[in-house]
């Protein structure tokens, strides 16, 4: 799952660095992802995994890192 998350962030996160240089726990906002870009990441994740994030998950901290995204996806039943 994390590889797919990384691919989505690579395409939609507008990071100022290569995502391969970041660890799973590194802060994507620090790496240049804007709030507007995080919205695109959110939409792309929903398309990729064919899921809908819970309303309570639509917050900044959920999209902060590959790990936090992965934890949210697991919570709504996406297999690791």
């Amino acid at each position: 799952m994390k590889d797919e998350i990384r691919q989505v962030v690579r395409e939609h996160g507008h990071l100022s660095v290569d995502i391969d240089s970041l660890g799973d726990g590194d802060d994507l906002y620090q790496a240049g992802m804007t709030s507007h870009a995080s919205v695109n990441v959110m939409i792309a994740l929903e398309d990729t995994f064919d899921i809908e994030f819970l309303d309570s998950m639509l917050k900044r901290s959920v999209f902060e890192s590959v790990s936090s995204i992965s934890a949210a996806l697991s919570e709504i039943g996406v297999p690791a």
Partner: protein
Amino acid sequence: MAEFRPGDAEQTAFLEQLLDARLLIDSGVPGVYGRGEDFERVRWAFDGKVSEAAAVDEPERLAFPPVLPKRRIEEIGYLKSFPHLAGTIFCFEGDEEQATEQEGKAERHEDWSEYQSQTELCLTPAACYPVYPAIAARGKLAAGGVMVDAGGSYVFRHEPSGDPARLQIFHQREIVRIGEPDTVAEWRDAWRDRSVELLRSVGLDANFDVANDPFFGRTGRLLARSQRAQALKFEILVQIAGPEPTAVASFNYHQDHFTSVYGIEMDAEETTAHTACLGFGLERITLALLHEHGLELDAWPAPVRTELGLG
């Protein structure tokens, strides 16, 4: 069509009083009113107070019309964040036969939208939007950046409501700061405090709070919460009519949103430029003053009249 939001009992009663006193003039469309002489006197008086407060910073004064090329709306992502609020200008582009048909339908108050085509213009939704491309066109910014006073332009938001404080078209007195990130953040904080003082000086119980914009839909919830988590927007709240205080001024720190869209950079080794703006809702402040001090200007407390130069 945007849903009409009725005002509560207090808001409805206040609107009726304003109409009876001819401070506002009904147009038949909720949230769109003419303004009586006393209303305008107060609005201009407060506008003057803002000019006075801004003068110490010697801002550059620019003025823009209340319409905006639709390209601007497109490039800044307004339709992503606020598709529900945008107003677009349509005009007739047809032949004589179609003009006759259109007129026939219009005369009978039927739908004549099929004869209308989208123009290259939108109604300006925020008075600061024309400022960013205008500054970008000048090239890189010298150290310290710029401060622009964009005056009090009419702005449009499609949100019909029975609350007199929620207008569809109103004046936003907007001041914009563009410069180094630290400079811009400090400016916003200084003006937030200065604005609270300004509103308190005319007898309003003004307080600021962290806020968020009314972003659209599910993605909007993420944007709104993100905006709050980073404290990017503050509002100054004053009691008008209704259960909760109303925002009469807002301070937005856009970070690099506009500077990246328009390629605005500092002429320095560190080229990053940020923007922030503050906007006073002049009609809301006028309404707050009328609500607080009464509908008869002559009966307002003398210190408030003096402060506003109302004689």
